[in-house]
């Protein structure tokens, strides 16, 4: 962690590095639909994120990865369970009590254009969090401090300082995402949750932004929860990966262990289904069927309706996420790999 003085203001004492920065304990988010139906978007997830690591949340649409990402920052309130940030239970903190915590946890969204107010200059948008939150000394930041910080931020995301006087529409998608990242970093957060931050970008620009995320992480000692459906992007950036299916984590482990030696049949199918940009790569037969509606989740193992290895027990009994290696867990009765 080579953190410069400017960014160390909020970094915690070194003893904290042994404890998780973020802990999620049996979090559930249930939406109540008309006609008494319930949608369990997040269905009992427990995991922890250590300081300085990047946890990738992957899964297909409707698996609950974005909802979980929002729950982590209390942008969406959970139905039950606990969220601990820096050891503090933030699950039921009031908005007011949450405000100082919010400085240390920020979010980057997928739609770089919708995230920026089109009628305000970039400089004003970036200054807003610096005006709302007091400085490290507990006092309001001076105009000069804010101006200096804005220039630092532009430098951090490799944009010219002239960008501060312009409007969102004057930038390309990649540049706008740089601005969103700069805004998320304005208050020197420890945790950044990025929800599909590169999926709206073209491949050639996507690589720039993925590199930027990696650089900033190394430079500022940031911790990311990186939500994305693109496995290749997640692999590039993540230390660990959590594979989600219908609201639950089905596999969790070191990135390459999960992607190259998957223990859950769903992780295996997901990895195999990604078309490789190489001719002659032989792809396994695709998974049949569609993802079931999260409103009518299958009983037993949630994946059993599509699993090529389904057995009787899978239909009746839901497998719990269990440890199969030092840092590898899987929710499957018959995992493909051990450890």
């Amino acid at each position: 962690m080579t953190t410069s003085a400017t960014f160390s203001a909020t970094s915690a004492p070194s003893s904290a590095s042994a404890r998780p920065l973020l802990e999620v304990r049996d979090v559930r988010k249930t939406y109540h639909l008309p006609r008494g139906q319930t949608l369990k978007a997040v269905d009992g997830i427990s995991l922890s994120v250590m300081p300085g690591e990047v946890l990738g949340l992957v899964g297909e649409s409707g698996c609950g990865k974005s909802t979980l990402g929002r729950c982590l920052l209390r942008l969406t309130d959970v139905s039950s369970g606990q969220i601990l940030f820096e050891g503090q239970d933030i699950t039921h903190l009031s908005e007011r009590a949450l405000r100082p915590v919010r400085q240390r946890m920020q979010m980057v969204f997928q739609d770089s254009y919708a995230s920026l107010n089109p009628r305000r200059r970039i400089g004003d948008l970036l200054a807003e969090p610096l005006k709302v939150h007091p400085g490290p000394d507990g006092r309001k930041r001076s105009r000069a401090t804010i101006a200096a910080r804005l220039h630092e931020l532009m430098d951090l995301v490799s944009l010219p300082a002239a960008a501060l006087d312009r409007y969102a529409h004057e930038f390309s998608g990649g540049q706008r995402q740089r601005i969103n990242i700069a805004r998320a970093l304005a208050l020197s957060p420890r945790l950044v949750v990025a929800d599909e931050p590169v999926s709206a970008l073209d491949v050639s620009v996507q690589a720039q932004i993925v590199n930027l995320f990696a650089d900033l992480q190394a430079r500022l000692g940031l911790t990311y929860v990186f939500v994305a459906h693109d496995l290749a992007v997640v692999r590039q950036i993540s230390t660990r990966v959590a594979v989600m299916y219908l609201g639950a984590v089905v596999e969790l482990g070191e990135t390459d262990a999960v992607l190259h030696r998957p223990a859950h049949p769903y992780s295996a199918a997901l990895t195999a289904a990604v078309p490789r940009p190489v001719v002659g790569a032989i792809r396994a037969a695709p998974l049949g069927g569609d993802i079931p509606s999260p409103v009518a989740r299958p009983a037993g193992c949630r994946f059993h309706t599509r699993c090529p290895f389904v057995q009787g027990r899978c239909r009746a009994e839901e497998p719990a996420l269990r440890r199969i290696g030092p840092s590898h867990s899987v929710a499957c009765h018959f995992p493909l790999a051990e450890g």
Partner: protein
Amino acid sequence: MPAEIAPPMTAPLLDVRDLCVSFPSRGRMIPIVEHVSFTLGERDILGLVGESGSGKSVTAMALMGLIDSPGVQITGSALFRGQELVGMPQKQLRRLRGREIAMIFQDPMTAFTPVYTIGWQIDEQIRAHERLSRKQARARTVELLAEMGVPDPARTADRYPHQLSGGLRQRAMIAMALSCNPSLLIADEPTTALDVTVQAQILDLIRSLRSTYGSSVLLITHDMGVVAETCDTTLVLYSGRVAETGPTEVLFAHPGHPYTAALLASIPPLDGPRPHRLPAIAGAPPAPLERPAGCAFAPRCTYVHDTCLPAPPPPLVPTGYDPLAAPQDDATAQVSAAAPSTQPVQFAACVLPAEGTPLPPRLTYSELSAGDEADATGFPPSSFAAGEPH
């Protein structure tokens, strides 16, 4: 430049020559697509690949006669079975569209009308082109849906678009497109809105169409993985111009244009070692009016030098890749079998081949694993810089 592409033995199904599309804006014409030429043979799958704004969708819409923006200028030629599509009267086009040339779109939700059932809409399409009773049309619809792998097709036909999942809607859309047995199917980002496991199913389906329906497919996508897996031939567009074209296996193993090479290198690999940094391409594609006089890729190219800059843009020339001279693996061996003459198969709009300095071949994953990470990308180290912000 089109004359340099050798004419195939038999007349192709679709022969596009020098297609240009410009839209008027504030008193000037903005060239969106410039001099695009390609041919598509019977039962071939051609991939039209490029980033957003590269003109791939506009090319397809122009072929279908679906651009009716006032003042639009479409020049060049597009021969479909010898009939000129450019400038064809709408009445004549309408007979061709749906029956001979069908199109599937990215978003199957907006392509169907929400107020009629899927079955009703497919019936209507069949009855618009063929004299069939409602009953006969519905029987055909159900049969088509079944062939597309839709479970319980008779019941699905009675459902409204919003009641189906994205994958089922896309299957229904493909069923509708195939209802009149078209010889050409234009698929515009058919899997982009789908999840990856469902995408794999739809790509398998599209690949099977040529044997079951004898259809040729023009597949428009931004995903190089989809192209590698699906297409026989690939055409890379950059900023409205053709950057490179060739048989897919040749183009992926030996990219002839620095843009193709850089694009392939910038995709994070899922297998093999993980590069420390992705070799990103600096900058962003130019807007149509800001295209450089010479090569449109020059400002972002690692190989840029004096000859790239002056107008006109470099023409498509053979890359010099000779499949007979270098049959190294199975993929290239297939190519040499398909093209027994030494006729060039791959063309790039770049000055490098003509100057005798073609690009080195792209490294495969197994080669990547053998080398160390710094060399793992097969791209010159200068491109490792974070790149200009864009």
